[in-house]
């Protein structure tokens, strides 16, 4: 059947090519319209209880898109006219930023931060310097005193040393465009900043704005990688076809995948561009296998017969269709299982990746041989530098010698050692961010510098909210509930990474005290829910409707406790969550008003961190399952499944160990790479083993078969690995730390896959002689050739 199919393809090659080109033309129409953007919401595992809490309350209690400006006086404190003017300019300038939620602007120059005071009619509240700035030195001094008096402002919004102040703002999530927000925010800073102040800026929209900011650089790096890739292919393959055909395959796959993605309404996240590289790498790898085999088939024509590209192409297709499709099917299957992750980003990525990988079946496995069939002078070369003689063959000879001598045991020994060592190190892998600051950017990037500065001066720029309450309305007025919140806050603040906490229970004592003539002995909650309700009413009356919204919902059934985090590290967040649970456990009375985890940026990250580890292990398990099933279908052997697990597990372990060693946390950004990497490691080994099998079936001895396989399929593996590894290392120069690290990871992973396909798998095949490759070996007799002879003959 395979032979028939191959014949058909080559016979109707014009139709096949036209079809492919037509589809490509159509797909490129869609592909070029694909949106390139990052959507933080896509990271949220919707089914996770934290996310449900977050989604329900984010509009009022604070979403994930809060942006924080810090205005820092370079000399003296902020209470001087030039600095105050800048605070006001920034605050007013915010209104010009698109998608901003103007009711969620908090600044001493805004109208939401207020001083609550007693007056003859009860209490009144007034903004610090809104709408007007203080006019003279006395008024500035009065402003300073007013700030110092209010613990809800002095500390959270004005730093303890008075040298800096925060302006925070939230966005309407559905209207927000990260790039626009990033641009407008930095423009605003440009307009305001001068020698008197330093203005710093953090927040998710800004972070992802930075990622987009580096998009041109990313494109340049892709081009550079492409250039290196083409150059190396040209040097090694010595033909234009050997250079351009893999490129065409990669391009067609990419176009098809992006086109389908656009049709499914999936956008392209610039952070996953390394994954795109990875899949393109597979396309190229298959294509190079085809070309290598084609040359081999051409070489089989002896002097008498006319060299026929069509025949060679047909034989190539017939010979490689099985391992090619098996490789692609395994890759696609293993990638598909990642979709069990509840994280939408991963699910969308899986659709993209599965389509992408599947298109390789057409673009590389079918199209490459079809195009090769047109080659007129298959034996001509474009340049004289023959790396096959200088580098590739000698190297492959070493591979053969390793299998033929006792060194093969050494290879297996090294692999076992690697398994153990890397397995041990993998256990140290950190879930969540491993360092303070964003792992997407380098430590010295402006964003991370700003983030560090803000966290130094303030309780913390990243927030998590927990919701205390239930279905019963007015529950948040209960003394027990409010009291529990205060105790909870006190308990949580004992963790040093949590800079502070804030809730309605902090507001009410201040209101109560104000009502009691400012007597600080009454700085306490009301005695009962009636009094507390009255205090809330008084506060809201003195303020504006909606001022309480960030603390408690409208029917007073749920209240928020906001926790300010100094960093987003996995450990910090896990400890906080564990402490919250411990508090709930130690305070059974909390049952009346439940504490619901957890919203805000930190709440979302906590949810993600909780699902990624188990998701990752489950994905590996399912990927291996798919691998075993594939092997049973194709080789009718579950031992084959175990055999091919070796390179997959090894490359994963090495990758994890490397991440642990380099302190790269397994977080939402790295998990797609790690997850998709699971499935993509097997096709090198498949090509090699399949060739061994078919050569052995033709009557060659095991060692001969291995030698032939290494010199043909192995050449493809070596060439693609070298070319890809070289081009992947371009990413080390990326301004995005994440891309650099992922580049390193993929480079490492390709190296391990290639080395295990070239050394370990043949060695294992030769030592254990699995039936699925060699059939029942006992019935066979040796052909009597010595390993040296074979190795020598191939050279």
């Amino acid at each position, binding site marked *: 059947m395979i032979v028939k199919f191959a014949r058909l393809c080559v016979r109707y090659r014009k139709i096949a090519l036209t079809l492919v080109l037509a589809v490509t033309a159509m797909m490129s129409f869609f592909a070029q319209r694909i949106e390139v953007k990052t959507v933080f919401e896509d990271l949220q595992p919707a089914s996770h209880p934290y996310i449900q809490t977050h989604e329900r309350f984010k509009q009022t209690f604070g979403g994930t898109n809060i942006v924080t400006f810090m205005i820092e006086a370079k000399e003296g404190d902020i209470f001087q006219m030039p600095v105050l003017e800048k605070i006001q300019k920034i605050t007013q300038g915010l209104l010009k930023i698109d998608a901003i939620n103007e009711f969620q602007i908090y600044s001493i120059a805004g109208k939401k931060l207020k001083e609550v005071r007693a007056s003859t009619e009860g209490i009144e509240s007034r903004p610090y310097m809104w709408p007007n700035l203080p006019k003279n030195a006395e008024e500035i001094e009065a402003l300073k005193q007013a700030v110092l008096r209010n613990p809800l402002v002095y500390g959270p919004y004005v730093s303890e040393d008075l040298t800096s102040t925060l302006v925070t703002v939230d966005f309407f999530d559905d209207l927000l465009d990260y790039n626009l927000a990033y641009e407008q925010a930095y423009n605003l800073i440009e307009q305001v900043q001068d020698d008197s102040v330093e203005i710093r800026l953090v927040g998710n929209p800004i972070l992802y704005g930075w990622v987009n900011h580096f998009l041109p650089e990313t494109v340049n790096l892709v081009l550079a990688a492409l250039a290196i890739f083409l150059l190396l292919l040209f040097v090694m393959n010595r033909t234009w076809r050997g250079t351009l055909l893999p490129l065409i395959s990669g391009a067609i796959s990419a176009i098809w995948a992006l086109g389908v993605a656009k049709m499914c309404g999936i956008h392209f996240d610039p952070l996953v561009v390394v994954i795109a590289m990875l899949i393109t790498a597979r396309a190229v790898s298959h294509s190079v296998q085809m070309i290598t085999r084609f040359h081999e088939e051409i070489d089989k024509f002896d002097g008498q017969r006319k060299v026929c590209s069509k025949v060679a192409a047909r034989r190539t297709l017939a010979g490689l269709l099985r391992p090619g499709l098996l490789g692609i099917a395994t890759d696609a299957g293993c990638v598909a299982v990642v979709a069990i992750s509840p994280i939408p980003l991963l699910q969308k990525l899986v659709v993209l990746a599965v389509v992408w990988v599947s298109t390789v079946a057409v673009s590389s496995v079918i199209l490459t041989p079809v195009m090769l069939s047109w080659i007129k002078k298959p034996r001509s070369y474009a340049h004289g530098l023959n790396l096959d003689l200088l580098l590739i063959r000698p190297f492959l000879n070493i591979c053969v010698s390793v299998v033929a*001598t006792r060194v093969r045991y050494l290879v297996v020994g090294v692999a076992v050692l690697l398994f153990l060592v890397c397995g041990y190190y993998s256990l140290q892998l950190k879930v969540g961010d491993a360092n303070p600051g964003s792992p997407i950017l380098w430590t010295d990037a402006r964003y991370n510098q700003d983030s560090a500065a803000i966290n130094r001066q303030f309780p913390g720029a990243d927030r998590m909210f927990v919701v205390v309450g239930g279905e019963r309305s007015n529950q948040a007025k209960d003394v027990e509930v409010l009291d529990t919140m205060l105790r909870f806050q006190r308990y949580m603040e004992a963790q040093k990474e949590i800079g502070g906490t804030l809730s309605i229970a902090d507001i009410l004592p201040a209101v109560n005290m104000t009502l009691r003539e400012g007597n600080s002995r009454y700085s306490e909650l009301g005695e009962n829910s009636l009094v507390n309700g009255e205090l809330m009413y008084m506060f809201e009356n003195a303020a504006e409707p909606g001022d309480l919204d960030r603390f408690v919902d409208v029917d007073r059934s749920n209240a928020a406790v906001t926790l300010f985090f100094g960093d987003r590290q996995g450990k910090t967040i*896990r400890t906080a969550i564990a402490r919250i649970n411990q508090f709930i456990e130690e305070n059974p009375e909390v049952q009346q008003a439940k504490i619901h985890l957890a919203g805000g940026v930190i709440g979302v990250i906590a949810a993600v961190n909780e699902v990624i580890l188990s998701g990752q292990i489950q994905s*590996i*398990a399912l990927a291996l399952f798919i691998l075993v099933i594939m092997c049973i279908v194709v080789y009718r*052997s579950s031992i084959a499944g175990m055999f091919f697990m070796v390179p997959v597990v090894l490359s994963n372990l090495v990758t994890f160990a490397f991440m642990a060693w380099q302190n790269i946390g397994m977080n939402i950004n790295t998990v797609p790479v790690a997850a998709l990497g699971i499935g993509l490691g097997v096709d090198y080994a498949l090509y090699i083993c399949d060739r061994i099998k078919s050569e052995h079936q033709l009557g060659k001895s095991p060692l001969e078969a291995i030698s032939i396989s290494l010199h043909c399929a192995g050449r493809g593996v070596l060439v693609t690995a070298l070319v890809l590894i070289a081009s992947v290392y371009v990413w080390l120069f990326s301004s995005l730390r994440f891309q650099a690290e992922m580049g390193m990871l993929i480079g490492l992973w390709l190296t391990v896959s290639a080395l295990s396909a070239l050394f370990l798998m043949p060695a294992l095949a030769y030592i254990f002689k699995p*039936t699925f490759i060699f059939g029942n070996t006992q019935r066979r007799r040796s052909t009597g050739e010595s390993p040296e002879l074979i190795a020598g003959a191939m050279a």
Partner: protein
Amino acid sequence: MSIAEKAPDDVLVSEHLSNHKSTGKKATSLLLSFVPWSIVAGLLWAGIFVKPSAQVETVVPPPIDKRDKIYGVSTIATDLIWLAGNYGKILRSDDGGSSWVRQITDTRKHLQDISAWDSQRAVAVGNGGIVLVTEDGGNSWSEIEVPKSEIANKLIRVHAYEGGEAWAVGEVGMILSTTDYGKTWRRMREEEDIIMNDLIKLGDRRIFVVGEYGRMFRSDDNGKTWQDFDTDSQSSLTAIDFRTRQHGVIVGLDGVILTTTDAGQSWRLTESKDSGNTEHLMDVQWSGDINRWISVGNKGKWMTFSSELNAYEAGNLSKTDLSSHTELALVQGGMIAVGANVGYLDFKTDEFTTLGNDRQ
């Protein structure tokens, strides 16, 4: 490669061995075919049950947490300091405030004041009419039932006097007294809708009580009968002290200062423009050490004034720390102020250092 090696294929296997071996091989391969499944199953199991672990370090909070409010302070000799504050917190220091021991109480009510008879016996009062006494230096505190009102029962201050006597005042005109180290308490005046903020007993029989809206009460018969005065102050009066039987000072909200030189027969109001302070004053005491009156109050304010009331000095305890204080206690060379934080003010250097907030 110098040593030629025989491939295992070259070895001929004899027939009878082969049969035996093939059974063994079958078993092995059967066993081997289970291995991939068990790996998959094991990983799946791990994926479902393995969770990243979090170490919950037990964090020992400092004796005085930043959220704590300490309302009352009492000193015996120079080194023994007792503090009482929110959520039933009582702390004792035997080294002038360098280290603190938290004492166990069974209440979560806010304690407003504490006063000690000696190093073993003390009384603390607070919200909801709670009265706690100890006879063992604070190792155990027991709650005492006292007469209560149906309206409100917050007790605000308590003062211990020689011989086991103590007086406490609070909301709804509450005046309580004991003569047996706090074991039993008697109500000394009928209910009235006024908050009594402070009290002082002079000699055997004379008692002054100050309260809301500038009102003052005096008894010359140890609390049997009371005379009611309106002072010149509209603001609530918060604290009273006498340096001699003749000379006394009352302070209050909005920086009110009232003084007497005739044993409380008449009181003269000092205008805030003279004293230079309009912030609430919450406590006042005479310091023989520096020969001045000392007062603390809201927003980090403190002031001193001379016995002749002709030299006022008002200032902030710290430039950036505007914590309110409710009481003060004189100690060697300075004073301890308690409230939103607890600190020691050195009279010589004017330096204010907070106490008890180091993590232990």
